[in-house]
């Protein structure tokens, strides 16, 4: 582009010096000029796409930054708390027709209940004390055994007080009311899980 303009200036200068050219005829500045009347309207086509790319790149970068800013704003906002379904009573269960109609408690009944609760309190206390006593006795018995073992051999004692890594985690199914029925074939059925899963 720069080369084209220099040459046009040079040619114009040259043409003004030469006397044999007619004065009224416009000159072509460069062979890039397609018509004699225009000047620098149809420039080399190669230059224009370069300009477009730069502007586009800038626009795209600006857009990306705007998106990033929006994302950051959203992330900064505190995450929505997941509702605990168990604590929300559905409204249909607080209707008045749902309230149970029972006869009021007689004084004898409330008296009986209070006495039963006191008996229960005592029962549980005795049970707990018995458990603690039993555990204490177990521990004492074990300490005695370890003492005797130490008297025998230090090496065996050290092996005995070492922690057993394979013991925990210890898992065991608890007792049921009736023992398992041998050869029982449970009925076929499909369990469809409808729990709602919330994502933050």
């Amino acid at each position, binding site marked *: 582009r720069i080369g084209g303009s220099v040459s046009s200036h040079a040619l114009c200068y040259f043409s003004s010096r030469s006397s044999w050219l007619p004065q009224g005829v416009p000159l072509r500045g460069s062979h890039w000029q397609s018509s004699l009347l225009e000047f620098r309207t149809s420039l080399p086509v190669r230059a224009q796409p370069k300009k477009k790319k730069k502007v586009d790149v800038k626009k795209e970068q600006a857009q990306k930054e705007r998106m990033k800013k929006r994302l950051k704003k959203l992330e900064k906002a505190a995450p929505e708390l997941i509702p605990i379904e168990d604590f929300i009573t559905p409204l249909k269960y607080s209707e008045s*027709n749902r*309230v149970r109609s029972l006869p009021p408690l007689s004084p004898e009944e409330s008296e009986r*209940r209070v006495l039963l*609760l006191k008996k229960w309190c005592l029962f549980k206390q005795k049970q707990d004390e018995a458990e603690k006593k039993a555990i204490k006795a*177990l521990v004492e018995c*074990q300490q005695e*055994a370890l003492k005797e073992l130490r008297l025998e051999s230090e090496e065996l004692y050290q092996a005995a007080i070492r922690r057993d890594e394979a013991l925990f985690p210890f898992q065991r199914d608890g007792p049921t*009311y009736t023992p398992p*029925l041998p050869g029982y074939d449970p009925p076929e059925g499909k369990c469809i899980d409808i729990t709602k899963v919330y994502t933050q």
Partner: protein
Amino acid sequence: SAAAPRPWRLFGAMCLLRLPRITQPLEKEEEEMAALMEQIELEKSHYSDHEIRKLEEEEQLKRKKESLYDEDEARGKTVVMARDLEEKWEQKFLQFKAAPRITDADKSNDRTSLNRKLDSNLMLLVKQKIGNQELWLLPQAEWQPGETLRSTAERAMATFLGDHIQAKVLGNAPFGIYKYKFPRAIRTENNVGAKIFFFKAFLQSSDLSEAELKADYLWVTKKELGDYLKSEYLKKVNRFLLD
């Protein structure tokens, strides 16, 4: 130290427990309390959908009886009553027969069976020869240098029940000890008596069909131990058993 002679011989014994499979029966206070808790829960509750349906159907029946016009039949619809559903469920429940809590082994008092006394702990007792006597004991083996006492106890268990026994030993430490001096006839300076260290394990496999090889064995509860064990030994064993 390995070189010095030990005056006490060491044994490792294993107390193998089969844990309860069913719940123990409730005490009187526990039953009363359970009934009270259920009553209070009922009083504090609201009607469920099923109960509301039942109440509405009762009212409908009453209205049907008073007015002889039956709306539902007029519409040509058969209604399934909640009462009928409840009866159906009850019938289905009665058809199911659970396994009995008191098994045949209980009734016949077969003490070699593992299916007895499903609500309490059962312990393994074997008949072993000590000196010139055959005694009922928890399975024991003599300690050999190079192994820990726990592995002695496990070896004892394996000799009587086979290698494939699945038992969880509760830790490396012994639970109890029984020591006794040999009768004067065989007592020497280097051989005063024996110390038996007890270890506890929970039986995990319920199937022992391929086991129980050699000696006589029994599975007994803590209360029945007195029938088989000698008094001093029994006293020491009872100390580390919970029940």
